[in-house]
């Protein structure tokens, strides 16, 4: 979060953090619990003013807030941006902190298929000096899937292994979704694997090779 704030400020934006904000309701929504999702989502919407765009460092939360939440609550859509897409459209030039680094980028599913964001995070990483390492099937799901990771833990973990094993000759695997990040990092910590970083962290702090 602090990394995202730094990037936005470097790009010349003032960042506000509405303290009353809560979860967008996605965990319940994806599990089928619409009433529970609605309850949480309603509080979420009350926290944000419509005068400012909402920028979110998560592909799946952005998808929920932009696509599903308006329909769930019957409200007008908010202006929601995924962080890397926002920075890219703003023409932000990230500081060169990744010179000499090789990074692999994993597409998170909702960000790629629902929001159609694939080039923006890659472009930002390249402009930060990093070289992008090829990753086999970067579009293939890492196996997190919210409650799926608990309902089908063996399959979920096997999918993470496929993703982690695909990383070769890279200093880190980068993703723009905290769900993928928690899952892949947790698996790598347990079983061995590459460093896994959020795109905001990679851009704001740089990845030391």
């Amino acid at each position, binding site marked *: 979060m602090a990394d995202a704030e730094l990037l936005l400020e470097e790009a010349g934006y003032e960042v506000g953090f509405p303290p009353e904000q809560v979860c967008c309701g996605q965990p319940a929504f994806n599990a089928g619990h619409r009433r529970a999702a609605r309850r949480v989502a309603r509080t979420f919407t009350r926290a944000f003013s419509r005068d400012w765009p909402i920028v979110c460092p998560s592909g799946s939360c952005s998808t929920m807030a932009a696509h599903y939440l308006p329909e769930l609550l019957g409200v007008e859509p908010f202006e929601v941006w995924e962080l890397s897409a926002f920075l890219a459209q703003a023409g932000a030039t990230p500081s060169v902190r990744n010179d000499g680094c090789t990074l692999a980028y994993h597409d998170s*599913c909702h960000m790629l298929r629902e929001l159609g964001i694939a080039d923006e995070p890659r472009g930002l990483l390249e402009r930060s000096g990093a070289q992008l390492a090829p990753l086999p099937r970067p579009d293939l799901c890492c196996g997190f899937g919210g409650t799926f990771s608990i309902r089908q833990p*063996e399959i979920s973990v096997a*999918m993470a292994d*496929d993703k982690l094993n695909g990383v070769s000759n890279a200093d880190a695997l980068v993703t723009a979704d905290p769900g993928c990040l928690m899952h892949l990092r947790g698996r790598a910590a347990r079983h061995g694997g590459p460093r896994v970083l959020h795109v905001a962290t990679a851009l704001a702090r740089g990845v030391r090779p």
Partner: protein
Amino acid sequence: MRMLEGRTNAWAGLEDVEALRERARKIRQRTISDLDRYLAEFTAAVEARGAKVRFARTAEEANAYIVDTCRRAGAELVAKSKSMASEEIRVNEALQAAGIRAVECDLGEYILQLANEHPIHIILPAIEKTAADVAELFSVVEGEPVSPQLEELAAAARRQLRKVFFSADVGLTGANFGVAQTGSICLVTNEGNGGLVTSLPKVHIALLGMERLVPTLDDLAVLLQLLPRSATGQKLTSYTRIISGPRREGESDGPEELHIVILDNGRSNLRGGRYEEMLSCIRCGACLNVCPVYRKAGGGAYGPVYSGPMAAVLVPLLVGLERAPALPHASSLCGACTAACPVKIPLHELLLELRKDLVEERVASARERLGFTLWSLAWSRPFLYRLSTSLARLAAPLAGRLGPGLVWTRGRDLPAFARRRFRDLP
């Protein structure tokens, strides 16, 4: 992976895939929304060509008609071509109970029948069997060892199946499509068995899912551009057979009788509601081939007949959610299935809808429902939300020992918390 690469290459030959998918979607949607009319048109056209039509509301009705037709033909042996609908109604068991032997003549299905197993992929039923597995099964039939070389295996299969083709009294097939305008059925296959099964025995019975109609031959042509590409990555399968009625006067081959059994078996449940789009499915298997969960779980995990994302949506709708409560959750909702579907069924969104139904129809456990209710009561209040994230930090050492945390930590570490929450930073 091989399936995926083949698929990519086959699409490369098409000019505008998106426009074609959209055309196909519209054809299927138009058919499904006016299905009664097309069923009536199809039935009239089939009958005008001298074939018989039987609408079966249930698997039992379909099986009873098939058994009865076989009996009237005096059949002892039925040669079958690959049909998922026939797997769905378990017609082999019904025939066996009536003392009639049914032999699968599609190579994959034949192998599974010898092994006494069910298909794990709707297009490639025996995809997991190795040449050595097959050699072992064929050796039992031949009564002597069969070498696991592919040529030897093909020769053995041909030897064994030829006997069936020539002595079968009835040929039983599925149908990929029925054409309402002409009363034709279309069979898309890669092995020669489809042709032999539909032409050599004196009676041909075709089992057609009630939703598998297209209005015209032109519409069929659109779908035939998509089906093989989506299924096996081929531009066209080896054989595409369009059958219009039984043998006519003066024709030298073809069956004397053609019976088309139109199968409902739960499909009507989907009509008119928000799941109607699922009736557009053409059973191509594209969603299986791209699904990362299917690749890890395998086809058997979805039940005995259908598999992959299409099964996760379709099976609960056919048999009832309470009989298949795990299937809507057999997905990470990654959406690869939706992106691959040639008729643009929003599979992962239908899974979300089914999950909602699981909760609202109280099929989901009371514990799960209570859990989410309590969660939502806390997280819809900013103060409690903040408190819970503070408590989570304190409780972190315990989290891996309770409930979901326990499951999570079997294969993964829990996330470490930042030293201070973002909201508490100065």
